[in-house]
């Protein structure tokens, strides 16, 4: 099956990941950040999907588990959205983070659901709370909030109390909520 775990931790330095991606496509790695022993590889937006596929399929990388995907809003800086994908290679016992920057005017990026099906709900959560659209996502609907919710609550410019005095649950219950 290929999921056997090696007994000792892999001694390869994680910058191997950057080297490996560079040798595949020199444009794929914009920047490599090391902070507190964690490696972050910044990837251009157009190449996210291809890089993700490479990370998953390459025999030297084997990042087969997408453990988490999340977004950080750096408002009012531009580009304001920072998407982080946390990858784990179960056979190699390695972690890496892929990062993509998205501007506030056009927060659209390719979905990675085709690479890791587990990205489905993670991307829906980011869409729900940050309003980032994922092209090619099979089922991009709100997941935690009601379908008729206004705004994206985890954006930094969204007030903690919301936009309205009264929560908009009344309309939701009147409407048939079958998707």
């Amino acid at each position, binding site marked *: 099956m290929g999921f056997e775990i090696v007994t000792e931790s892999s001694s390869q330095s994680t910058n191997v990941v950057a080297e490996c991606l560079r040798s595949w496509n020199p444009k794929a790695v914009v920047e490599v950040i090391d902070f507190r022993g*964690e490696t972050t590889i910044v990837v251009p937006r157009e190449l996210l999907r291809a890089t993700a596929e490479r990370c998953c399929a390459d025999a030297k990388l084997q990042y087969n588990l997408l453990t988490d995907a*999340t977004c*950080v809003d750096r408002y009012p800086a531009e580009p304001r959205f920072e998407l982080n994908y*946390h990858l784990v290679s*179960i056979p190699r*016992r390695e972690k890496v983070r892929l990062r993509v920057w998205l501007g506030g005017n056009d927060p659209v990026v390719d979905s990675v659901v085709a690479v890791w099906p587990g990205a489905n709900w993670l991307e829906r959560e980011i869409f729900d709370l940050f309003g980032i659209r994922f092209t090619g996502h099979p089922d991009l609907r709100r997941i935690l909030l009601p379908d008729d919710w206004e705004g994206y*609550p985890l954006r930094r410019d969204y007030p*903690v109390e919301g936009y309205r005095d009264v929560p908009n649950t009344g309309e939701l219950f009147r409407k048939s909520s079958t998707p």
Partner: protein
Amino acid sequence: MVLNMGPQHPSTHGVLRILLELDGETVVKAIPDLGYLHTGIEKSCEDKTYSQVITLTDRMDYLNPLGNNLVYCLAVEKLLGLEIPKRAQYIRVMMVELQRISSHLVWLGTHAIDLGAMTVFLYCFREREEILKIFELFTGQRMMTSYIRIGGLALDPPAGWRQAVERFLKMMPSRVDEYETLLTENRIWIGRTKGVGYISAEDAVALSMTGPTLRAAGVAYDNRKVFPYSSYEEFKFDVPTRTESDCYARYLVRVAEMHESLKIIRQALDKISNEGPIKAEAPGIIPPQREKMKTEMEALIYHFKIFTEGFSPAPGEVFVTVESPRGELGCFIASDGSPKPLRVHFRGPSYINLQALPKLIEGQLISDVIACIGTIDIVLGEVDR
């Protein structure tokens, strides 16, 4: 026919709604609908100082508050580059392993009652009570403990703690065997769980499943072994795995995990010294002792600054994962150098494992849906956050 299961259904373990498209009694399609418990914890975190967030973490996965405290504190400590005294690390390990047993007990009890075995539920809650008593002894709280703090622990273990844990360790192994005599060979239990809710190892990894559900599919992925934290590398224990990947295999994995946790607690008990620090030395981050605060000017200033402003870690991002009873629990913190986190995100294993539910139940009978929800071991507080 489309059937609405939940949000108020005892077997959904909270408020989960599943739309079931049925053909007779067979499930053709299942669409989970969640968010009924969404409280915006991640948004609230952005408005609190680093220390204040700890009380919110308790309230996510309410069967694993200590584990949530731990993952958050580990993340902040990584951000700060803090070194934690060994004694505090061992106490943390002991507490989260007790928590793992208590969480598995709730799982086993509720899973069994869902499938019609009433007795196991009562037995499990009887033993869970003993663990909660230990928590009360250590932390003053049964559930929302907030015991693990940034830089160490809230309190020194109280007098008599060792005897209390010893008593529990002596009692528990035979009690776990007792559950096994009730279930493992039980024909009804086998009939309800064996071959139900199969998922292949490839699918489980692709769907980002972790924890006992993944290990029951034959993948020995356990954060305590693969990416050890809090001195787990010093403990000897096995990672139980099965290959059948059905509800019965997951039951066996979790029961075996309880035995492994008992082993870890035993080792931790031997490692924890009676005297020693429980907090790191970091003035300005960890509140000074009360006596010092009353007698030393500097300590008073630190005390005042910590509780009015908080502390400011360096800008950067960290992502820390631990093994919660349900799987990989992760905490992502982005700091912008201010006393409040820019972003806190929790990777809830329940949320991500629940994603695989349609895969488990499509093509199965409607009565197996209940077995499958139980077997993933979801806590809706963590799913919705």
